[in-house]
């Protein structure tokens, strides 16, 4: 697979300025924790440790409370993410139509287990519970593109139509 060095997130570094810009949209109340974490992740693509420490100070709670809440929700990531998201839907409708073999095909093709990121930081592979396009089951989402009525043999085709070409 090709290596895309530019796939590394530009916003990697956590600086006072960047955090201040995020905090300026909030009042610093405890109940804002989840929206704040969502904003931090939107900026950095994951939750860097330093950022979480600053969030704790901003809303005046312990760091463990921030970490505790963040780890509770599957939306939050704690390591750097790849450039493109591949979501293999494993909802009920997709499951009965063979989602498992499609997930396995992606794992084979990308050489990464579900939940992981490829070494070149190009793809994240995720299994998701349901993206609500059940009528098109089994479904795969590559970034914002939905591939319906998937088959295991079309997995390579999905990756061949490189999302980079559309960006």
């Amino acid at each position, binding site marked *: 697979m090709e290596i895309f060095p530019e796939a590394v997130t530009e916003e990697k570094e956590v600086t006072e300025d960047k955090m201040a810009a995020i905090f300026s949209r909030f009042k610093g109340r405890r*109940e804002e924790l989840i929206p704040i974490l969502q904003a931090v992740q939107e900026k950095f693509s994951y939750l860097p440790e330093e950022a979480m420490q600053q969030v704790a100070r901003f809303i005046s709670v312990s760091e463990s409370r921030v970490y505790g*809440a963040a780890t509770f929700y599957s*939306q939050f990531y704690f390591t750097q993410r790849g450039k493109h998201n591949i979501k293999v839907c494993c909802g009920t409708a997709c499951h009965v139509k063979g989602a498992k073999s499609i997930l396995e095909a992606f794992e*084979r093709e990308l050489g990464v287990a579900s939940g992981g990121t490829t070494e070149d930081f190009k793809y994240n592979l995720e299994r998701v519970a349901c993206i609500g396009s059940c009528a098109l*089951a089994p479904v795969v989402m590559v970034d914002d593109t939905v591939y319906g009525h998937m088959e295991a043999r079309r997995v390579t085709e999905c990756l061949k139509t490189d999302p980079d070409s559309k960006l």
Partner: protein
Amino acid sequence: MFAEIDSPAKLAKISEICRAAFARQKTRFLICAGTGCVAMGSLPVLAEFKRQIAERGLAVDVEMLFEGREAVTAAAGSGCHGFCEKGPLVRVEPQGIFYNKVKAEDVAEILAASLDQNSIVERLLYKNPDGSPCLTVHEVPFYSGQTRNVLERCGLIDPEDIREYFAHDGYQALAKALREYTPEQVIEIVSRSNLRGRGGAGFTTGKKWATCRRAPGDTKYVVCNCDEGDPGAFMDRSVLEADPHAVLEGMAIAAYAVGAERGFLYVRAEYPLAVARLQKAMEQAIKWKVLGENIMGCGFNFYPEIFQGAGAFVCGEETSLLASLEGGRGMPRMKPPFPAEEGLWKRPTVLNNVKTLAKVPKIIDQGADWFAATGTVKSPGTAVFALTGKIKNSGLIEVPMGITLREIVYGIGGGIINDGKFKAVQTGGPSGGCLPEELLELEVDFDSLRSAGSMMGSGGMVVLDEKSCMVDIARYFLEFTVHESCGQCTPCRDGIWQMLHILNDITAGKGRPEDLALLEEMGKSIIAGAICGLGKTAPNPVLSTLRYFRPEYEAHIQDKACPALNCQELIAYQIDPNKCKACGRCRKECPVEAIKGEKKTPHVIEQSKCCKCGICLETCPAKFSAVSKITGKHGDGSLASIDR
């Protein structure tokens, strides 16, 4: 056109103006822009309609309609039409012509037919199984079997323009409640209608509101539960995307009834389009003064806010949802006290599902008796289901309570895909169960489903055919609940985990005969001991399949066979040497190079290498059909699957 609505009388006037303005559109093309159709490519179709209509010089800005100009034609994106299977969908109003599987290149033909020739593009009409076309939406069996109340406006209005909602009597029910009824009277009407919560449990809405109203304290909240997490369910999302104002109006009525000023819509993180539509709807409603401060000059304030969830299924449980709203881990707590007495920040809080709130305006408008006239005595009204799985007509449906499963599956759903054999219908998602063919005559409502060992749930309905393994379905749901368990109480955290391990063993051919009794015993203890609804219902998929499909479990344990040819570790792929024409396609596609063979020699699968991905079966040309799946024992007593 914009005006601040400062009295109910003004609203009536505005509605009249809006109705008249939109009536000036002679032809209206409604292109479904729900998530399902967007995935099928409906946005380019919408763009093409807009472009070509403008090219024809027919485009009239909505604003110009309000100046009395006549628009010959208009194209608008709408919410979900429901029949996702056949998307992208286009409706031509007022005739109700229904086109399916429309592509951008079909647009010119549709416009020419409707605008120039007064005819119809027959090839895009929905065809019945016998090949006869359906002209209008009312002729399509998928729609004609339905009773659409909550979904009435879904697909008919542009959800991003509040004036379309006004043209359909929008916010009239709120005006009526504020002007004609005391909060107690509103609760009385809702109680008398016997509306039950559409989130799944079916608790009486009026009772919940009355408890909250009675609870001491000045600060109260209304929360709309839009955290629709069941896999295989998208009813709430479709309502939020297609008719957001109905939910907001219902919420405002609830707030008036219980005495709340603030409300929260807790929306699932995975629903970006629903969030965008709600946001827009809220801004418009506040601007027009039908929400916000001093609503319609009646002295009542209501401020709704959107809160986006962060991906935790358990947050659909009301006490978890509130913990999450307060900014922490979404852990449920013991009830009582119920949220209606002690909820968000310890204040009395009413939590209702999207569809429950969307039903409220019409109940206030038409009265309790109108609502109670549909459905069954104990479960009046309609139910919205996401009908999916091995069914011909997948999509979103609304049916009266009391309809039989057969009418849903074979009437509206059109039967099983590829004319396969019906095996079961799964309702209620991970909290529900699987109902067999013998129960097809069951009349669907909250109580009948529960006594059959399943649940209404929020409305997922997945149809299964003979190729679906019931042990695997049970295992699948447990895998889901184990992953989503918050880990707080032992029955759920450890109990379901243990049950999953037993099921994993069974599907891998390592089950023991005594496992089935053990599963039943554990299931019952978990139901009795878990803290919240997630744990209390998690064993249902296992218990219901054990009840109705026990022989299938026994086949896995005793014969090491999966009758549905589904469980990977109990099946093998083989190539019939008499049918194989050595075309080499499977050999080329096999990702693990497990297929051996030369030109003109029938191919053979090397079982020790095979990863059971099924690609050989997919690629073998239908005219040969040489690849098949086998399970159980061969004639010589050896197992089809090789233990590796």
